[in-house]
């Protein structure tokens, strides 16, 4: 194990929710896992005290618009969640996060550069970190 470059990250998705396939022209993803904290502070405590509640899971993806692959935008209209798989570095392909997700997408087109796409997702089922 070592610190790896993000250059070889991957984002894979399967609208059927089974076998994710790598999406092209993307260059960034972010996964956020936050757990609700319940305030259980009592009289006499010297500071506020919390206990963990339910974990929330969401994130974002981004890259360039490529008309040969519009999976991200098809996913927006999907009635059922797809399987999303996020790999930090494909040279360590066994390390990844995956799970069912609903996706929203944006496209940002400017005269100054290549049209950029971005998307956000939220869990639609249990997510796993592997291994």
């Amino acid at each position, binding site marked *: 194990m070592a610190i790896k470059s993000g*250059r070889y*990250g991957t984002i894979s998705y399967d609208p059927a929710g089974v076998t994710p396939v790598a999406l092209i*022209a993307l260059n960034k993803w972010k996964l956020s896992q936050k757990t609700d904290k319940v305030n259980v502070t009592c009289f006499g405590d010297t500071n506020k005290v919390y206990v963990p509640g339910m974990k929330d899971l969401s994130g974002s993806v981004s*890259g*360039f618009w490529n008309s040969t692959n519009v999976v991200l935008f098809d996913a927006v209209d999907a009635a059922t969640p797809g399987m999303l798989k996020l790999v930090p570095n494909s040279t360590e392909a066994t390390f990844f996060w995956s799970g069912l997700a609903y996706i929203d997408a944006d496209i940002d087109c400017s005269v100054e550069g*290549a049209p950029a796409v971005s998307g956000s997702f939220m869990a639609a089922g249990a997510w796993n970190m592997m291994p």
Partner: protein
Amino acid sequence: MPPDSSDVDAALVAKLGADSALLALMPNGVYVDEAPPGMTRFVIVSLVDEHDEAEFGRRAIEDALYLVKAVALSTAGANIRAAAARIDALLEDGALTVAGYTHMTMHRVERVRVTEVDDLDATLRWQHRGGRYRVMVAPT
């Protein structure tokens, strides 16, 4: 293996050098960075700036800025204005065919117009006219 970025430079030079109207105005030809000694009417192409945009695992976009200008000695009788206009007609929103790449855009971002005093003979002037052109290509 990524395509050869120098092919983008070469394609730009070839496009300009293949235009008979431009060569009629600048008969000494099209050169990268500097023309051979003795030339008095020519076109110069220089790479001013370049940066690459990455996608996961590969280069996604090569974004280059080229200086493209007609250069003429004041005594050579050149129509520098027409030469600059011809360069712009060829490059502004023009297509560039480069092996291993998909053309994205080519357009001017800045005009260039300079008069330079000759280094050896202060009575002579060199006229430079053209522009800086942004060329974006995507490796296939």
